[in-house]
């Protein structure tokens, strides 16, 4: 029996430590992990809890992230509650196995500490790894600070393990700005947290010898499409379970999370859409700008990146008077508009108000995104709204040195 961990009502934890505490409280059976900055302390923490008797579980040291996720797939198929952590290059090396995990419907929790992808080599935070996972069939939830990392890591198990879902879940937080920044975190006591997550009820577990089962079968053209469609439907249908779990968490803690967070959108004329720790910066900037210049700025943050909340984003935009919407992508778009821009634009297109849509690439490799820059972008959006058309290039770059860079203009006759 695992020892109980004494916790204060308020602890000073960074995002990594908060996450490792959540993994401990969920009493995970197996962590197969390989270290990488900045996510290492999460699994390091789990290892120490196992060694010190706080978890009755197994820490499996492996030779790479590909092996780490493979170990997780094996342990999850065997019937265990399984989690691991990674970042950046490690995430990229896991990519092949991420698709296996989701296709096999194994509710593994991967706590991702977002970091830029090389080259050039960079340990700082951007969303390149998160974006790399966006077609992998995993649920992707984004925490904007340490408290949220703790809360949402607990929720991640409850969402993925729901028998109507049975999908792996990534819980994202920003490298360093969240993972290494000590903040006040209000944890749940061990018994309360475990009761919330609940006992793991495996499905088709390989260690049930009375019902031998094959996992990861081969299908060719006869069956592949049907299985992928079923998997996609499960991911789409997980929306209601996510809402349900977040609702239960609110009832327990008073802390409310939504698949799409929106701030001051009711009367917003211009709005920014963004993810991660920058959301808090943008909300602060919007509040200041409302006071200082009376510009009605709102913020939209799709906390649930997958399944993409097309429905809720459409509602938020449709129910607001917003005229200009600027999507900020913290990942090098590789010859396209940013992913947030593309996906939010698709949702916005089905609204009556159809706001002007612009795109900023920002914060790559940990480039700072400060309140003043957020305000500058907001004022620029206001200029678009006043003019009735986009007055700049549609895709621009925030905080980039050198001659101004931008792509595409609105076609006007």
């Amino acid at each position: 029996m695992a020892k109980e961990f004494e916790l204060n009502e308020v602890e000073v934890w960074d995002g990594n430590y908060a996450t490792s505490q959540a993994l401990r409280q969920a009493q995970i059976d197996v962590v197969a992990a390989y270290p990488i900055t900045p996510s290492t302390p999460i699994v390091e923490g789990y290892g120490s809890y196992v060694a010190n008797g706080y978890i009755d579980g197994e820490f499996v040291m492996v030779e790479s992230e590909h092996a780490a996720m493979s170990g997780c797939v094996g342990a999850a198929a065997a019937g265990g509650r399984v989690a691991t952590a990674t970042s950046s290059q490690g995430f990229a090396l896991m990519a092949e196995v991420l698709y296996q995990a989701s296709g096999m419907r194994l509710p593994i929790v991967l706590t991702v500490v977002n970091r830029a992808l090389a080259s050039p080599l960079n340990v700082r935070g951007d969303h390149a790894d998160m974006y790399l996972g966006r077609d992998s069939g995993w649920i992707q939830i984004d925490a904007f600070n340490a408290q949220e990392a703790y809360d949402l890591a607990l929720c991640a198990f409850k969402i993925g393990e729901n028998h109507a879902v049975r999908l792996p879940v990534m819980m994202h937080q920003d490298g360093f700005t969240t993972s290494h920044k000590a903040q006040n975190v209000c944890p749940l006591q061990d018994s309360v947290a475990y009761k919330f997550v609940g006992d793991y009820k495996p499905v088709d577990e390989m260690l049930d010898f009375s019902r031998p089962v094959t996992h990861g079968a081969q299908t060719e053209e006869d069956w592949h499409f049907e299985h992928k469609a079923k998997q996609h439907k499960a991911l789409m249908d997980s929306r209601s379970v996510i809402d349900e779990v977040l609702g239960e968490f609110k009832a327990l803690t008073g802390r409310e999370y939504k698949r799409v967070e929106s701030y001051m959108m009711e009367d917003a004329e211009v709005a920014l859409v963004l993810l991660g720790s920058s959301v808090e910066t943008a909300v602060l900037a919007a509040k200041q700008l409302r006071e200082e210049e009376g510009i009605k700025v709102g913020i939209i943050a799709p906390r649930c990146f997958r399944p993409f909340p097309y429905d809720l984003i459409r509602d938020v935009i449709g129910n607001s008077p917003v005229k200009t919407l600027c999507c900020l992508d913290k990942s090098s778009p590789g010859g396209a508009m940013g992913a947030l821009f593309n996906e939010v634009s698709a949702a916005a297109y089905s609204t009556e108000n159809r706001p002007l849509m612009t795109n900023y690439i920002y914060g790559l490799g940990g480039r700072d995104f400060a309140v003043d820059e957020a305000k500058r972008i907001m004022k620029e959006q206001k200029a678009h709204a006043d003019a009735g058309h986009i007055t700049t290039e549609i895709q621009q770059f925030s905080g980039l040195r050198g001659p101004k860079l931008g792509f595409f203009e609105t076609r006007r006759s």
Partner: protein
Amino acid sequence: MSRGVLSTDKRGMRELGAEEKVGWDAVTQGVTLHSFEGETKGAAFIKPEERAYTDHNSYTATVASWRVVKPVYNRDICIDCQNCWVWCPDTSIISRDKQMLGIDYDHCKGCGVCVEVCPTNPKSLLMFSEAIENDTALSGWPEKKKKEK
């Protein structure tokens, strides 16, 4: 070709890929495939032909068409050493109480390993073209080879 080394057998009852093509709503979650209908206790102690294999199990499917050459078994020479049973990569050697019964032609891929490992002289298993009948193959079996001095 005569099949059914064991008369009660579900072995190779259907062509692989001939199963009913159901829609996305009816496929299993996560492509999991159970070997047996319901619960099974101590499957290792139940003879294969008495196990409640599901249609998902390859046991009930035949892949005989994948083979171009086949092993033919000669009961008159075999010493029941079980070498072929041990080495066959597709569990296609059927043996009971350490008595060799024959070849599972529904799952044998014709790799020839059984022939390689057969220690008798002449061999009790030899490879023949699929087109040759087993009786014809047996009637022309080679003689014992004399040791060269």
